[in-house]
């Protein structure tokens, strides 16, 4: 039986969230949970282990970079791969996200195949 993976998508835009969930539905054995913003994301991360986290940067209440910082102090998720998704495309933003502990950086508008490939790569899923 194939292993089942869990993924948390943190995105304030319902439209983007739906698109990300659709893209991730193409990855076999991946169960996706949605969160509206950073605070909701942290709430969902408390007590539940996720195998991968995808988060937007620009969000109200708590942005994605703060979320990344907080996740890295959580013993349960300190090594969980994090993919940052944002409209910012500069190398500086990319470096900032990576320095805070993100593992990968995808810019909007997202391409579903790119998201799928990145998630598979980080979860080491072949095929």
């Amino acid at each position, binding site marked *: 039986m194939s292993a089942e993976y869990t993924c948390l998508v943190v995105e304030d*835009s*319902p*439209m*983007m969230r*739906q*698109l990300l969930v*659709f*893209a991730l539905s*193409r990855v076999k054995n991946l169960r996706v949970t949605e969160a509206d913003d950073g605070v909701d994301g942290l709430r969902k991360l408390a007590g539940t282990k996720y195998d991968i986290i995808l988060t937007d940067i620009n969000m109200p209440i708590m942005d994605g970079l703060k979320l990344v910082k907080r996740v890295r102090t959580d013993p349960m998720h300190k090594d969980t791969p994090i993919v940052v998704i944002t*409209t910012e*495309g*500069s190398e500086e933003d990319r470096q900032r996200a990576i320095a805070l502990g993100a593992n990968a950086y995808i*810019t*909007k*508008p997202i*391409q*579903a*195949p790119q998201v*799928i490939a990145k998630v598979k790569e980080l979860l080491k899923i072949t095929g």
Partner: protein
Amino acid sequence: MEKKGKGRRSDRPPVDLAAQLKLQRESFVSTFFRKGAEFTEELVTENDRLRAALADAERDNAALRTQLASDEAIRDLLRKIDDLEREKQALLSHVHEAEAHTTQFTNRHAQIEEELANLANLHVASYHLHSTLRLPMVVRHLRELLQQLVGARAYAIYVADDARGELVAIAAEGLEATDLLPIPYGAGETQEDARGTVERAFVTGIARVEEGPLDATRHQPAACLPMRVDDRAVGVIVIHALLAQKTRFVAVDFELFKMLGLHAASALVGAQLFAAADGRVPGVEVFQGISPSIPPKSLANP
């Protein structure tokens, strides 16, 4: 006549002659035996030489036979190598065929995945555009669609004010206030500047979209998308610039633009009418007579 000397010949050989004969005989016998011995020696030597030659010939023969057998084995091996080479070529040919099929399949799979993703974009955009009749939410969804799905950095949404004959910006991003002044329409010849392009798109109802890479120094909008309800244009979406990482519109953008042209206006107008009706949903009476298969009375209020 007999010779004179013959008469004196005796029957007895003279002694000298006999001795001489004896000597001669002994000499002959001695010579005979010596020659015989020599001949025998020669024969023995020759025999030895021939035996040696025979042994050599047999060795050569054995060596040649071994060589022949070895050559035959080599020929067998060469035949096997040829057979294996042919088999290898056939297998390689199958592998190449299989690889070509795999590549074809992978490409097709990627194409299908891309088309599926594009369809998902269209579905999500349309779904959210029509998921509400609250005007601010419709505008928010339009903005999200332009920013997140198309990747627009600077854009404006204009709605026609028929009373003034102007296109009025109702939402914008990344533009100065001076860029958002109302755009008059239908007052005469359109200008060749950006505002003229927006007006032309609205008046003609024909979208204008840059198809190649976007030049940062251009003065024209990247896209002007008239919004229509049935045959009537009610506004224009104008995209001036894209996000830095996006240098041109891609296939799905053109599909999104077609969808926006048809759906954005109906979503905006529907929300506007809903707001004007104070959020009241029309009664069943408005649906009377729409379907000829249902008698009007069955829909009428008692």
